[in-house]
Structure formats: C-alpha cells, structure tokens
C-alpha cells in the first residue's frame, strides 16, 4: 500500500520541481534578470542589453517545459499567454516566438546563433550553450 502511494507522489514531485534553464550562445555576454527575459519573450524588447538583436525561441504549447517557463518566468498561465499573443496577432502588433519541438533541437539552434535565446529542461543542458538563469 505504501509503495502504491509513493510512486505517484514521486512522479508529481519530479514534475513540480523540474527546473527550466534559459540558454544563449556561449559568446553572448548578456546578463539578464527575469524581468528582462520576460520582456524579450513577450515581444516588448527586441535586443540584449548590449544592443544586439535577440531572437527568442519557445517550446511546444502545453509541454512541461513551456508550462514551467510560463509560470516561473512570465508569471502567466497558458491561457493568459494565449490571450496575450492573440491580442497582438489579431491587431498586427506582433507574433509569438517560434516553437521548437525538442530540447536537443533548441540546444542545437542556440549553439549556432548568437542572437537566439531559448529555454530547455535544466537536465538537458550541455556545454554547447551558456546558461543565463535557471528557474
């Protein structure tokens, strides 16, 4: 009986405490606080503090990593994010970050382009990218 109770609890804990890492190209010297990261992901800021263009990439809507990122960095639910971007898309004021399917693909894209900023499950991070912050 105890085993049956502990297995789902452990799974629940793992999903709740999974960390998200915000990553950039290793040559990117930017230091961004959570608010600055949020501004880039909400389309309100188009550049890093050094003035170089910032290209944010997201992960699939509804993925655990995206849910964590939305809650911890953007302080919004999936529905609030959808409403936010719907407002911009249908009024010609912006488009949401392009969605990347997997952590591996995200890491590859970030490692190839100094303008790209992305997020992945912290457990997936490799030395091909630089971690800006974890949440």
């Amino acid at each position: 009986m105890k085993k049956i109770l502990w297995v789902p609890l452990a799974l629940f804990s793992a999903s709740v405490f999974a960390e998200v890492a915000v990553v950039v190209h290793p040559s990117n010297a930017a230091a961004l606080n959570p608010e600055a990261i949020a501004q880039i992901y909400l389309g309100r800021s188009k550049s890093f503090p050094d003035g170089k263009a910032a290209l944010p990439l997201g992960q699939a809507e509804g993925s655990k990593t995206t849910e964590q990122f939305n809650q911890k960095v953007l302080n919004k639910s999936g529905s609030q994010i959808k409403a936010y971007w719907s407002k911009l898309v249908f009024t010609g004021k912006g488009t949401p970050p392009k969605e990347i399917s997997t952590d591996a693909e995200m890491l590859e894209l970030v490692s190839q382009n100094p303008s790209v900023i992305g997020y992945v499950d912290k457990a997936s991070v490799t030395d091909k990218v630089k971690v800006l912050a974890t949440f």
Partner: protein
Amino acid sequence: MNWLNPKQQALPLLACVLFAGNGQAAEFNWSGFLTLAAGKTLSGSVQGQNEVRINCPCMISDFSQSGVIDSSWDFAADSKLGLQGNIQLSEQLSLTAQVVSRGARDWDPNLEWVYAGWQLGDNDLLQVGRKRLPLFYYSEQQDVSFTYPWVHLPPQTYGWEAVNYNGINWNHSFQAGDWSGLVNTFAGSETRKDNDYMKIYNGIDSETDTRWRKIIGAEVLMNRDWFEGRLMLMKSETQSRLVSDNEDWSAPAEQMLFGASGLIDYQDWIFSAELFFSDRTESYGRDLAYTLTTGKRLDGWAWYLTHGLYQQKINAMNPLELTTEADQEKHRLSSAVVRFDVSSAAAVKVQLDHWKDGGGQWFKQTYGDANALSISYDRVF
C-alpha cells in the same frame, strides 16, 4: 459590405504583385477566433416593440454593430467568427487580411482588416491599409473576446460610429529603463455606409452614412511588469447624412477625442480603469465615459465586477438641434462576469448586466433600464 475605397483595396494587392516575383518563398499563416454568445434580457422598464422596432426589454451590448440583447434568447448580439491570413513576403514585408462574420450583421462576412506592414528595423513598423481605429484600450482586439474579461466590451465606453479606418500608421517601440513603450501614430479617413451604429438611434430600417475625415492621432502605451498605462489623443472631422430621408452630408464638424487607461495585473488580482472624453462642440457638445473593473483569477476561474458610465452634455445651442430634456444620453452599466478557461485556447463566460438609464425622455422611453444575462464560448485557433 466592405467600405474600402478602390485605391486602398489596390495597394496591398500591388505590393503583392511587386514582391511575388522576387524569388523569395512567401510564408503563409492563418489563424482565427470564435465567439458563440447567447443573450436575453431578464427584465426592464420598456416593454414590447420600441420606437426603433426592437423587442424590449432590451439592452445595447455593442453600439458599433447595433448589437442589442432583446427579450428572447438568441446568438445575434455578440457572436462572431473571424479568420485572418498573413503572408510574409520577406523579412520586412507582410500582408494581412481579416474577415469577420457577425451575428449582429446576419453573419455576412466582412473584410475588416487588410493592410501591408513594413518592418523598418527592430523597433519600427509601418502599416498601410484598413485597420481598427485605436480609440480605446481594447478597440483593436474588440472582436477577439477570448482576450478580455467580458462577453461584450463595456458599451458605455466602447460605443462609437467609427470602428475602422483606411490610412497609415507607424508603430515605434522603445525601452526606458525597466519600462517598455509603444507609440502608435495614425492618420486616415473612414466612411461607413448604412452605419449600424446609427440604427440604434434612427431605427433598424433606417439608412445613415457617416464619415470621419482628416483623422490624425497617437496613442502611447507603457508597460512594466504588472502595470500597463495608455494615453490616446485623436481629432477628425465628422459628417453624416440620413440617406433614408434623402439628406445631404452635414457640414464638417471637428471633434477631439481623448482616452486614458491603466491596467494592474498583480498576483492574480486585476484592476483596470479607462476614461474617455470627447469635445464635439461643433456637433452637439461633449461626452464623458469611464469603466472601472476589478477581478480575481483562481484555479482556471476568473471573477470580474465592472461599472461604467456614459454621459453626454448637450450645449444649449447646437447645430444638430438636440435638447437636454429629450435627447441627452446618460446611462450606467454594472456587470458581474465569471470566466472559466476550458483550455489554454478556449473559455466559457457568464455575464449578468444591470443597465440604469438616466438620460432624456427619448432614450428612457426607447431603451430604459434593463437586466440581461449572456453566456459565451470563446475560442482562438
């Protein structure tokens, strides 16, 4: 049903022809939104068919599209379906069109947005074509009910005879410390033939044309974390003619419009205030409108309370020969809304409205007080 003039219709098409042959692969995206909203008045001070042939008790939910909730359940007042297509012709140039079909207009599809956009660097965007006139905070997104709290926008503030315009606008975004800002300047004109807004006043079988020319205005939005503020100033000339009475265009009358709003969204509490003034002395006088809202989100649910006022001040001597006793318009609306997010892209809302009239005799006898219930399903895709 589409009031684009031929020159403005041709502009995005011309851009399409010019750039289609440059060898770049154009990227096409489409998206859409849906609101299925049923509404019914529960009680009210006017009974039976009123002077403009609406079955009362009745409550105006959308002045601009003559959306009126009447004494029987139906989907007419606030339901709509919108489809938007966007072609990205190059990194700088895109074309966008949006067609909206509304219950209030017998579901006739109407091309409401069609514009070309040029991205001029990271922070500047120039758009030319037909767009929504950004009079109020929610004006541009007014058809996408999923993006705001209510089944219908507060009609005390969101009720004017012009909704779109043909022209040009320039968006400039900037950073100021921890603040991000956007300045949108716009200019153009709008002619609405057989304007639905005027049917609220002149009768559902009447035909009135309205024209706003020499529109020029600007809005400034400032964001920081949980706060967003907005200021808007606009002026134009206005004219109208009651076609069904064979009237000629009225003399151009200048109007000045001013809007201010603030939105706080902090730890699942929401507070918003929107204020609007107009100076239409050359037509009849002045207008004041405001909307105050408080709300709380909790586990996929959100609860909102809203109160709004619209008050007209008619000058003693005015070209339209309106009188305070008969024609002056003043009304308040108190609303309670419950929203449940069915998914990240869909929501169900229930809204209870209490409309209190305080205006002149005509409005009191034609619409009066009303209580109404509305239920909606909103979706974006």
